[in-house]
């Protein structure tokens, strides 16, 4: 099991954010996490990553109890791809990727040629090796997101968490980033990503996890999970789910716009 969460609860002070979450994610699975804003998706991710430590329950990643691991050990099991954001200073793309290769280095050491090669190979794997020496802040948002994916790959953890990787991207970049993620999961990585587009789950996920009000509302094959009833209730808008291309894809369409 890549990620195994058992009776996870988490509160900010008095406010309970997550309540009795139980989820098992097998190896090499691409999981889409759906749910309205503020239902605890980010909190769930922060707990899995060890950024929120005061949770109840057990989180195992690759069989290891995350609570017992050091920061360094955690980084070997799981990596994190944040939404792309501008760093304060200008770094070369290769240097940004290189940042994740330090988990196996001593406190006082800097990365050597071995790490540079690892970073470069990661850039090649997502198909942007030609950007290696460009300035990170001067490439497009989609390219930046791919750089962050390469950075997570260079970290060589088997499980990756992505927080809304495509929310700030245009359509072309969204497709490029998601198909890159799809390919990585086929190659054996486990990837958990949150999204606001239920449609994406049909093409770009093996399993869909729906979080609502701090608990798991549904979890399983996107075809079973993303139904008219669930999406309508979850987001408070009436939708219809329709199938296209011999049920290779399904789309969610707001009923109001197609009612007449």
């Amino acid at each position, binding site marked *: 099991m890549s990620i195994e969460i058992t009776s996870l609860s988490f509160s900010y002070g008095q406010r309970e954010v997550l309540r009795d979450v139980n989820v098992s994610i097998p190896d090499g699975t691409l999981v889409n996490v759906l749910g309205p804003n503020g239902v605890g998706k980010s909190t769930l991710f922060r707990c899995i*990553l060890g950024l929120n430590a005061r949770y109840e329950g057990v989180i195992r990643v690759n069989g290891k109890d995350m609570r017992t691991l050091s920061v360094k050990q955690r*980084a070997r099991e*799981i990596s*994190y791809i944040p939404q792309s954001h501008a760093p304060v200073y200008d770094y070369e793309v290769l240097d940004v990727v290189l940042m994740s290769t*330090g988990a196996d280095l001593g406190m006082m050491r*800097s990365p050597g040629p071995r790490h540079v090669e690892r970073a470069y190979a990661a850039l090649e794997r997502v198909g942007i090796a*030609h950007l290696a020496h460009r300035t990170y802040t001067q490439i497009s948002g989609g390219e930046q997101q791919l750089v962050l994916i390469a950075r997570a790959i260079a970290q060589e953890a088997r499980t990756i968490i992505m927080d809304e990787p495509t929310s700030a991207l245009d359509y072309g970049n969204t497709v490029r980033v998601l198909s890159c993620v799809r390919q990585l999961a086929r190659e054996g990585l486990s990837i958990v990503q949150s999204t606001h587009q239920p449609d994406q789950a049909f093409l770009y996920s093996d399993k869909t996890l729906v979080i609502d009000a701090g608990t798991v509302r549904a979890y399983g094959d996107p075809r079973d999970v993303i139904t008219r009833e669930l999406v309508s209730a979850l987001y408070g808008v009436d939708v219809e789910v329709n199938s296209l291309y011999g049920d290779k894809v399904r789309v969610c369409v707001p009923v109001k716009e197609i009612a007449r």
Partner: protein
Amino acid sequence: MSRPGEPRTLASPEASTPPPSSAAARPAPSVSARRAHLIIAGLAVFMVLAAGVSLMLGRYPIEPAQALAMLANQIPGVTLEPTWTSQQATLFFNVRLPRIMLALMVGCCLATAGAAFQGTFQNPLVSPDILGASQGAAFGAAIAILAGQAAFGVSVSAFGFSILTVMLVLLVSSRAKGNRILVTVLAGTMISSLFSAGVSFTKLVADPTDDLPAITYWLMGSLTGAKMSDIAVAAIPMTVGMAVLFALRWRINILTMGDDEASTMGIDARRLRLAIILAATMATASSVAISGMIGWVGLVVPHLCRMMVGSDYRRLIPASMLFGASFLLVVDNIARLTATSEIPIGILTAFVGAPFFLYLITRKKKV
């Protein structure tokens, strides 16, 4: 940071060629990295040359040949026929040489600590005394002067109070709620102003004929009157601080991405930040303790270096060390050579630093 007229990354040959096939998995050497290494080597050469030339400059005439001969005479096993007077030797070894060494050391420490703090606090407008190191030192020096201490006692008191102030800031910020970086900087600013008020109070109660001018001159910062023995003592914390910052330099890059990201990449951000703060504070406190308040070097030099070698701390730290040392040496040469009565170096660095700072913040949105 987009720099018009400097398309260094775009002009690199790798950028224009199509993506190589995965068979050719070879990291091409970065053009900008190679350029940066050349610049760092150039800065090192410049520093050595500047130090050599400075040794021969001064109001009391010492010929370059005499200076070289006096230096060579110090090498064990070499005894030269003196071509210099004993007065010249005294001046050379007790005044000029210590002062030049101090300028190099203080410049190196302030610039490097500034660069490290700008990364640690993810803020390009931060200087090494953001956590109160300077105001704490000033207060320590002022009360030592009031207590009638000699120069060494003043320095020790300044150093002690400087470290104490930063510890106090760290203690307060560790108990405060909210964004860790923000509360640390806020606590630093607040406690700084507290000690600054303390300094004003000591000035108020100081004897206006004797102690008050002493405090005022101390606050202006100066490299005059440095003794070899004081420098040797200060060199210990300075060297430790510099060595730690140099060793951690690559990790500062990761810290600039934010604590959460750093931590998911296997870096304990809080521990790393603490180590950097302690090392930078040791270097800053000993610099301020021995030379008074010399502003701007720690703010301006890292930015100049960033323009030359880029933002990667693996190159920014060595560049700041070398350029900071050269910068303060050159400014100190101006201080001791130009005007008939010496201008305190703290004033001169502000004259250079403040306009440059204004230029930086008006040049573009993001520095």
